């Protein structure tokens, strides 16, 4: 993949990858993806808009945190495994340290009335944000192919949220069924 032409910008070095993803991580309050796009496509021009969309869809098809996967792919294209390591460590390193420090503060001061009350509010709000994420993800599917998507959404939800079955097992059973359904649906439309 390293021989693939990018947006005409010079191929980034491992150090440039590290610094860029470091910046993306620390700027990405409330979601890193929009900032990643602005940096990689508009500011650095390492990827064309089409490249970015296509790379993102690859990263979303694969398991794992999308933005971490993206750092791996962008790094690998620029300079092989060294690029992947530089980009992903740049992305993950600082946030992990910050969050560990926050965890220490939580265990030290989490029982204090004021901190406890602040965290009650934060927790309630954070869970609301995930409700919105779920709704935003569900909407296009339910609009596009409701009778195909809704049963799988409902069964996955019932199995994991209500029955509390282990998620990997649910995925191993439902995943292939849903992929087969999508396969036949696409073939019948073609």
């Amino acid at each position: 993949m390293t021989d693939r032409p990018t947006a005409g910008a010079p191929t980034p070095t491992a150090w440039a990858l590290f610094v860029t993803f470091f910046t993306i991580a620390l700027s990405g309050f409330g979601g890193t993806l929009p900032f990643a796009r602005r940096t990689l496509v508009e500011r650095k021009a390492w990827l064309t808009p089409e490249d970015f969309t296509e790379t993102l869809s690859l990263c979303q098809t694969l398991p794992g945190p999308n933005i971490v996967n993206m750092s791996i792919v962008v790094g690998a294209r620029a300079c092989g495994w060294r690029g992947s390591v530089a980009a992903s460590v740049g992305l993950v390193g600082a946030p992990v340290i910050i969050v560990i420090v926050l965890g220490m503060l939580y265990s030290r001061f989490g029982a204090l009335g004021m901190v406890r009350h602040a965290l009650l509010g934060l927790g309630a709000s954070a869970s609301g944000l995930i409700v919105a994420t779920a709704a935003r993800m569900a909407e296009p599917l339910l609009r596009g192919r409701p009778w195909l998507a809704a049963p799988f959404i409902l069964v996955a939800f019932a199995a994991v949220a209500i029955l509390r079955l282990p998620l990997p097992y649910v995925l191993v059973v439902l995943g292939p069924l849903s992929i087969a359904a999508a396969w036949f649906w696409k073939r019948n439309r073609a």
Partner: protein
Amino acid sequence: MKTSDTLVALAVQFTALSLVAFGGANAVIPEMHRQAVDVNHWMTNQDFAALFAIAQAAPGPNFLVTTLIGWKAAGLAGALVATAAMCGPSCLLTFWVARAWDRYRETAWRSAIGAGLAPVTVGFVCSSAFVLVRAADTGWKLAIVTAASAGVAYFTKLNPLWCLLAAGILGVLGLLA
């Protein structure tokens, strides 16, 4: 449980989650919750809600709740083991697949995989929302905060950090207890 046992449990659990986390970390929250609260008793429901909130409020990718679960279960070593286990396997897979990607870009089976996994992933993210709301909302005032945040995030383009900030301030003022 001995610390070394806990570290092994963290490594095994998050390695498995790494490879099934289609749609990112938000999709596997229910399984993290099941393991950390129900199975291994590393923390209470309230702890889980608080740690998730801290991870959301911190800068960076949203899988950081993994780091905090590891940290709560087994200290610094736990945090590092959980983080490495959550990122490592999927990173290796991505690195390997990215090289073959161009060859399969337009194939029908690849788009079928994407289209097929999407509804299951959405079902998982809905489960995450359900688990988190139940852990966080211990009173009606908190339920209102959840509903308001969800509404703002769904209907506007406002940075979600403002919701967290406002809710934190309401909490500090003692209006939510």
